[in-house]
């Protein structure tokens, strides 16, 4: 019984996180919520008697995917910064 209640709470958290990633306006928030989603998912795998998946999801889904998203966002930010720097350089303007 306790297991069912815990599982239901986690599943509710999953749905909440999924909807939150869809509606949040900041991309950084989306990525962080997605990492939380993956962590909840790894606990759900444990409750569904799939410990192999749990370890893999925690390492891959929450760790590596999150880092990849973060790095992609950072690269994108870098392009913006470069463009702004170029605009502000004296002599570049016509």
């Amino acid at each position, binding site marked *: 019984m306790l297991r069912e209640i815990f599982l239901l709470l986690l599943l509710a958290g999953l749905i909440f996180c999924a909807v939150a990633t869809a509606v949040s306006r900041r991309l950084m928030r989306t990525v962080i919520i997605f990492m939380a989603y993956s962590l909840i998912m790894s606990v759900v795998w444990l409750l569904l008697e799939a410990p*192999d998946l749990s370890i893999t999801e925690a*390492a891959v889904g929450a760790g*590596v995917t999150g880092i990849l998203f973060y790095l992609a966002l950072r690269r994108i930010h870098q392009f913006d910064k470069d463009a702004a720097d170029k605009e502000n350089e004296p002599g570049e303007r016509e």
Partner: protein
Amino acid sequence: MRKSFLQKLSAWYKGSYDFTLKTADHMDARMAHEYTGKEHKLREVERKELVFSGVLYNILCVLFCLIFIGVLLWSVLFLPPHGSPDNPAVNEVMERYVAAGMEETGAVNTVAGMILDYRAFDTLGESFVLFTAVCAVTILMNNTKESAADGTPIPMTVKPGIVEYSKDNIVRTVSRFLIPFIFVFGAYVLLNGHLSPGGGFSGGAILGSALILYAMVYGEDRAAAVFSERLIKTVVLISLSFYAIAKSYSFFTGANHLKSIISTGTPGRILSAGLILPLNIAVGIVVCCTMYSFYMYFRRGRIQ
């Protein structure tokens, strides 16, 4: 200056007005929320786009989502009940894997025995998927394309971010203690794949994240000095070829009813389960190097 409703409607059609926003200032404030960049020539296009980003669009999205979920939920009625032992998924294949798996493969963990012995061909294909992904990321993110006059590539300059982890004392001190433990845990998960939950994929991912943490904290240059592009390429290729050759031998002997010289050993020992342990190590190395290369290419466009 007030516009009439018809004027507003025609402006909305042309894309210069949004009913959900009051003034143009609001519109600008809303655009600043998104990562749109600082390109001014894009403003007009984005202003047009904002017409469809209003409440109506969101409501339609939610409506579509609900209808879609409703249609799919209808199919649940025709599914067997959850958790019952009489489900059609619980068939003779599963019974065979569980009942005879330990004897035939020597692996205590049935999942590891399944993916690396009964269905090892799948896993080989998947390792090649990872390898292909690294190749694709290498092509796409390679930043040394621009070369100088004499043909030597100019490496990209990595600018420091807002938080430079290698300068932070707390991060450095904690990582110095944490990284060895993460490495040991990853190696444990990798080597015990046939005895306990874990195996090549999870162990490799943990080792890869330890490498990523090392590169983050101590700087990419120090990490690249140890794990160079050449080393990674060689190790991954050797692992993949070892996997292919070992499994070819296993398939050859199995298909021709020959006796394999690799014994399954005593289940439960660390040196048991025949080919599963070496195959786990090969897969783990491929996954680890893949994750590390992903990080390096996303971070600075090259491994070296």
